[in-house]
């Protein structure tokens, strides 16, 4: 059986910037792939191409057998995507928003309400379903985004920094959820938190400047650090692979051309 996500020779240039510079990898059902890299490494750009938002400069993406460039609607139907920052329509309520997404995805009537009830239970949106999204806290907004991505129970789930800006409890909940879903889906999540990879991922890819510098199990990643490094071993490997400075910024700052 072929992989659920097949990425071949993916390239994206923004003018002179080579944001993504020839990525090739597969993700199969049951895998939770942690997509790591410093700011500006090309993680979001890769995800935007994989989900059909951006057109690649070169290369192809297939999702569950559908070529994203040739049959985008079919590919998007089997995909769940949480874009960076979990955008949602601020003047809608989570209920209205999820109904909208569900209807677009072809869910109607009882099936739609049942799916909404299911994701609301899973990401804990009870109690805020009739409150405009713009009035929600960052954590709740992120969960509304997750609910949206999970609504149609997609085979393939792509999440751009799903735990960014959540408090430790919320992070823990989202990680448990991802872990639980990992068995039956192909999941890709980008993150800059290395412990997250250990906690939920079955595999890690590290990219820097649009190229893959590591692809393997999280354990293998850690084993690259010499025994002399006793603390923050993952951080050490990450810095070594990505050529970062001695004290890399722990938080994502709003850099890059996304303003």
């Amino acid at each position: 059986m072929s992989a659920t996500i097949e990425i071949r020779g993916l390239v994206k240039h923004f003018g002179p910037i080579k944001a993504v510079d020839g990525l090739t990898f597969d993700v199969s059902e049951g895998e939770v792939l942690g997509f790591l890299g410093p700011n500006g490494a090309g993680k979001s750009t890769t995800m935007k191409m994989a989900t059909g938002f951006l057109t690649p400069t070169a290369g192809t993406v297939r999702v569950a057998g559908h070529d994203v460039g040739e049959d985008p609607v079919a590919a998007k139907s089997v995909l769940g995507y949480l874009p960076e920052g979990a955008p949602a329509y601020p003047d809608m309520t989570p209920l209205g928003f999820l109904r909208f997404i569900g209807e677009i995805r072809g869910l109607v009537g009882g099936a739609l309400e049942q799916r909404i009830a299911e994701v609301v239970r899973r990401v804990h949106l009870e109690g805020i379903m009739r409150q405009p999204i713009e009035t929600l806290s960052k954590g709740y907004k992120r969960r509304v985004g997750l609910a949206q991505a999970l609504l149609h129970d997609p085979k393939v789930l792509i999440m751009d920094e799903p735990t960014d800006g959540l408090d430790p409890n919320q992070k823990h909940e989202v990680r448990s959820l991802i872990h639980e879903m990992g068995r039956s889906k192909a999941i890709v999540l980008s993150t800059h938190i290395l412990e997250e990879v250990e906690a939920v991922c079955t595999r890690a890819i590290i990219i820097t400047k649009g190229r893959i510098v590591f692809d393997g199990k999280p354990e293998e990643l850690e084993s690259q650090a010499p025994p002399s490094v006793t603390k923050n071993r993952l951080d050490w490997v990450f810095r070594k692979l990505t050529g970062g400075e001695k004290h890399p910024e722990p938080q994502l700052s709003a850099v890059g051309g996304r303003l």
Partner: protein
Amino acid sequence: MRKVFTILKRELAGYFATPVAYVFIVIFLLLSGFFTFQLGDFYNDGNGQATLSGFFNWHPWLYLFLIPALSMRLWAEERKQGTIELLMTLPITLPQAVLGKFLAAWLFAGVALALTFPMWITVNYLGDPDNGTIAAGFLGSLLMSGGFLAIGSCVSALTKNQVIAFVLSVSICLVFLMTGFTPVIGIFSGWLPAAVIEAIASFSFLTHFDGLAKGLIEARDLVFFASLIGLALYANTLLLELKKAD
């Protein structure tokens, strides 16, 4: 088609979730009433006939500012909020999204126009107007608002800044009005051949709206507005395809 309808429904609900809808409708009604009664010689069209021509004659100028106010948010807001990324990774095609949003705005403009029906009742109460002519005027006004909206939607796809979208749309729509505005034509008639002037004027909203406002439903006017809407929405789709991310 079902997906177009889902987009339309969400968009339309969006108008009423904020004061935009109410402000638009109230201003449209107030201004069309004011222009018609104060400036449009409602009571006297010169030959003692009850008509709504004064009312309709103001519509191009009302729409010039009000329709871009309605259309500026269509795509600029999606860009600003980042929801464009969400929308375009849902299983819909670009034309479905463009059409759904445009139809929602057009339906809304249509509702505002329909709410001017007391004018129609008033002229019937005051006199004995030609209701066929008035119906053609409403049709023309609706088509013209669609033309303005399609241009505005296309322009809104260019930027994430609604103010820029507004100013650009007003400017482009102004050109579409001016090329058929008699005083402007007068200026150019001195030094351009009549055929050229006529060709330029044939692209004007005014040229095509005037006939309809006078009650003449002619195919070329209908075709003009329909093709203008089609072309602008096609350009809208292309623009989105070309620059989705920034």
